[in-house]
């Protein structure tokens, strides 16, 4: 009897005491921070193997563990990472009918080689058995080679064109990148990094069994060779300027993976990778966290933080709750919360223009959207400035096309279509759509009505859909909004090209190559030109961009591309949201390597062109000040 009473009252009391004690402990006693950075992420990486991942969550983690040959510095300029030097050159090959013709061409061109002519950057020429002439140029691209071809024709030295299936070219132009590698880098298991790793990584990426999302970046590579342990030579089949950027991707360790079947990588490597970067993999508790620890042998020196933890959290609200309870160290602020954080002195905020834009894609296969007047009318009937003000609380700008203001090739002169419902109505009238009895416009007995799709789970897009619905009603257009899960949206509508209009966004890197999105050849199921945009002029611009290496030329082409596509309105380009991050004031400072060996620059966290989190590996907590004696195993850089 007593025992019954004991249990009956005792257990609940015990539980309450435990709860209160645990609460007091968590709130007041256990509050000191470790020397560890906590980063919140919504998506969990599916794999930490950098050549098999395509989601941003995986690359965030990968950025700490791996290095590429090249990287961006804080001004978004390309600098060396694992490579100390890279030279671009090209081999242009002509073929002739006879050896004499070839020799004639050679002596003609050797003059230019000797005199270092600025227009024709020929470094040397060489006869290849027996009727070919290889011209080495110090710059890649078509222009110089085309000028040479023209000059040969003028000189009546006739070359024989190359036939490759149905394509006829006057010459073969093969760009070459020559990388010189650092010699002081080691993998996390101590093995030295060499050119064999680059070779292996390339082979793995193009291996279909690996199914690497990066394989399309290397389609035009004809060969990769490693003449010495610290040099790599990459040859391309034809000029392809985005090539350099593809070498910013992570490099894999050959010594660990070259003898393992790709299908076994998932168990053997992908969950506990080895890289060369500032942090080493430590542990991964699925759906909870991934922990990295500092690499004291990092070639730039040991990081100041002992460890970095990536916490996997399911949704934005949870991220915010985690940030406010010091469980993660920074948070990507939702636009409506920016104001309240700005006013709060406990926080530091960093804002920058974003890398993505939101749009409504018109399915150009539908007769309704084939009339440019209709597309322009719809664009001017939607009040985008108001959308920016109310959906993203003013934190963003109207989009003027396929590039965002942050990109160096963005054209600020492109004028955005203004909000003008009157013009919209006029345009619709002109296109033959007259107001019907219920206010909705009619033409040939059909009502001006379409379905707008958006994905469940993204409030901004849902709100966009609702606002668009309202705005278009004012000009006599009926919009039905349907929300679906992402998986359904893709399978049932987008991949089959069976939709009217859809609210989406593109997240872009610093890459001007948008071939996959806009080229008329990319309209098959599952390809990215799912609105079926066809413009031969744009096709040319896209291909030209891919072959252009000179920055001023790229700028010209990109600007033309942006204006042309904007004029065509295949999308209703909406807005480019700003991204703002918030940190607890003074929770971190930056101490990064200076330009001279042994020099360190100490500063608070600031915003740079590459963002505030550039060089995150060199952050430190003021409670754990860095001691310069923890430099890595080498001082020269």
């Amino acid at each position: 009897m007593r025992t019954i009473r004991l249990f009956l009252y005792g257990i609940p009391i015990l539980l309450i005491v435990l709860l209160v004690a645990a609460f007091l402990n968590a709130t007041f006693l256990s509050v000191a921070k470790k020397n560890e950075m906590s980063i919140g992420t919504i998506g969990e990486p599916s794999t930490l193997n950098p050549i098999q991942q395509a989601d941003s969550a995986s690359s965030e983690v990968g950025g700490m563990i791996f290095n590429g040959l090249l990287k961006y510095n804080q001004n978004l300029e390309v600098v060396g990472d694992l490579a100390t030097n890279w030279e671009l050159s090209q081999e242009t090959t002509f073929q002739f009918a006879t050896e004499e013709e070839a020799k004639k061409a050679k002596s003609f061109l050797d003059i230019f080689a000797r005199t270092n002519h600025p227009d024709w950057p020929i470094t040397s020429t060489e006869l290849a058995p027996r009727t070919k002439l290889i011209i080495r140029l110090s710059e890649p691209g078509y222009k110089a080679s085309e000028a040479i071809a023209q000059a040969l024709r003028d000189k009546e030295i006739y070359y024989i064109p190359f036939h490759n299936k149905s394509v006829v070219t006057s010459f073969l132009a093969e760009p070459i990148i020559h990388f010189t590698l650092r010699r002081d880098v080691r993998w996390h298991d101590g093995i030295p990094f060499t050119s064999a790793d680059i070779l292996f990584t390339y082979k793995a990426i193009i291996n279909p069994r690996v199914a690497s999302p990066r394989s399309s970046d290397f389609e035009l590579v004809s060969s990769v060779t490693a003449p010495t342990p610290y040099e790599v030579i990459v040859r391309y089949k034809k000029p392809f300027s985005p090539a350099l950027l593809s070498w910013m991707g992570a490099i894999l360790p050959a010594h660990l993976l070259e003898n393992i079947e790709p299908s076994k990588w998932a168990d053997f490597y992908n969950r506990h990778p080895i890289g060369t970067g500032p942090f080493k993999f430590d542990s991964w508790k699925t759906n909870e966290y991934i922990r990295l620890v500092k690499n004291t042998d990092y070639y730039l020196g040991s990081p100041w933080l002992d460890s970095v933890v990536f916490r996997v959290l399911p949704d934005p609200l949870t991220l915010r709750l985690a940030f406010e309870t010091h469980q993660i160290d920074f948070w990507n602020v939702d636009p409506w919360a920016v104001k309240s954080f700005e006013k709060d002195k406990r926080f530091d905020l960093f804002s920058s223009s974003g890398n993505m834009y939101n749009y409504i894609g018109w399915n150009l296969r539908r007769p309704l959207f084939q009339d440019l007047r209709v597309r322009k009318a719809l664009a001017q009937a939607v009040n985008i400035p108001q959308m920016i003000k109310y959906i993203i609380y003013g934190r963003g700008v109207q989009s003027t096309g396929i590039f965002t203001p942050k990109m160096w090739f963005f054209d600020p002169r492109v004028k955005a279509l203004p909000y003008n419902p009157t013009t919209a109505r006029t345009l619709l009238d002109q296109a033959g759509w007259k107001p019907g009895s219920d206010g909705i416009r009619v033409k040939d007995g059909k009502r001006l009505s379409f379905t707008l799709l958006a994905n469940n789970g993204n409030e901004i897009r849902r709100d966009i859909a609702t606002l668009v619905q309202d705005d278009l009603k004012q000009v006599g257009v009926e919009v039905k909004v349907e929300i679906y899960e992402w998986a359904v949206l893709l399978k049932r509508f987008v991949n089959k090209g069976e939709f009217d209009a859809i609210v989406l966004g593109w997240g872009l890197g610093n890459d001007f190559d948008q071939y996959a999105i806009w080229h008329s050849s990319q309209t098959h199921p599952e390809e990215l030109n799912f609105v079926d945009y066809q413009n031969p002029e744009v096709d040319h611009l896209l291909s030209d961009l891919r072959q252009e290496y000179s920055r001023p030329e790229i700028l010209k082409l990109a600007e033309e591309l942006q204006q042309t596509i904007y004029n065509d309105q295949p999308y209703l380009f909406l807005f480019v949201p700003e991204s703002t991050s918030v940190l607890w004031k003074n929770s971190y400072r930056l101490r990064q390597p200076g330009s001279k060996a042994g020099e360190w620059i100490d500063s608070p966290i600031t915003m740079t062109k590459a963002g505030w989190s550039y060089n995150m590996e060199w952050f430190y907590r003021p409670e754990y000040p860095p001691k310069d004696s923890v430099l890595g195993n080498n001082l020269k850089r």
Partner: protein
Amino acid sequence: MTTLTAKTIQASETETPGTRIWRRFWAQPIALISVIVILFFAITAGGTAILSATGHHWPCDPNTTNLEQKLLPPSPQHWLGTDNLGRDVLSRMLHGAGISLTVGFIAVAVSLGIGLVVGAIAGYFGGLTDQILMRSVDALLCFPTFFLILTAVAILGPSMINIVVVIGLVSWTGTARLVRGEFLTLRETEYVKGARVLGQGHWSIITRHILPNAAAPILVTAVLGIPDAILTEAGLSFLGFGVQPPQATWGNIIAEGKSYLLDAWWLNLFPGLAILLAALSFYLAINALQEAAENRS
């Protein structure tokens, strides 16, 4: 004295079960309060439905967006504040009441219908039919109901009819078991046996003898499904699988307001309170009914 006692005895002797239950029900104060709350919800839901059918809205149209007025706290103009598109929360909640109550009643009707039929057949015929049916019920109970509802709604699409049907389809098992139990017991009673001897058909036996006696406990337990359905619908809406916006339900007001939780607490508090009150009143009323129906000496 004797006359008084005689009268009292007379009164209790001539009282029908129904009247007695009625009296005992209303004797409980909590019953009155909960019925008033239920009626309040029902009337506001019905009134709102009638009003909007004729094109009027009070206090305003729940779907009119007004971006200048978004995320406003409760004020004299907007008693319960506005949501992220500037829509009046009170109006949306009034419409949501209709959805919650409709889902509650129809889902229960569906589940009662199926449960009644299955349970009656199993209980009345017994034997092999009973075994087969009950094993199927067991099998159905093995499906983790929540995932079942999720996937079913994902297949059929999240419209109100689909959700109602799905909730009903998933929750009939309890009713079926109860009905079967009642039928099994009642089947053995004297008057049913007598009716069989007299050659009465199954149908008339069921409708005339068994059902009226089984009705009370079955109905009382089945009605418990209403608050359950209201809570399930709110949970589904919250997860994004319920009735879709812009149609307002209590659950999806909370769901849409989730991201603004720390800045706009009213988007969470009021709809949640409404769900709580509605479900609570049903539970209390049904409990009062059960207490009243109890055979206490």
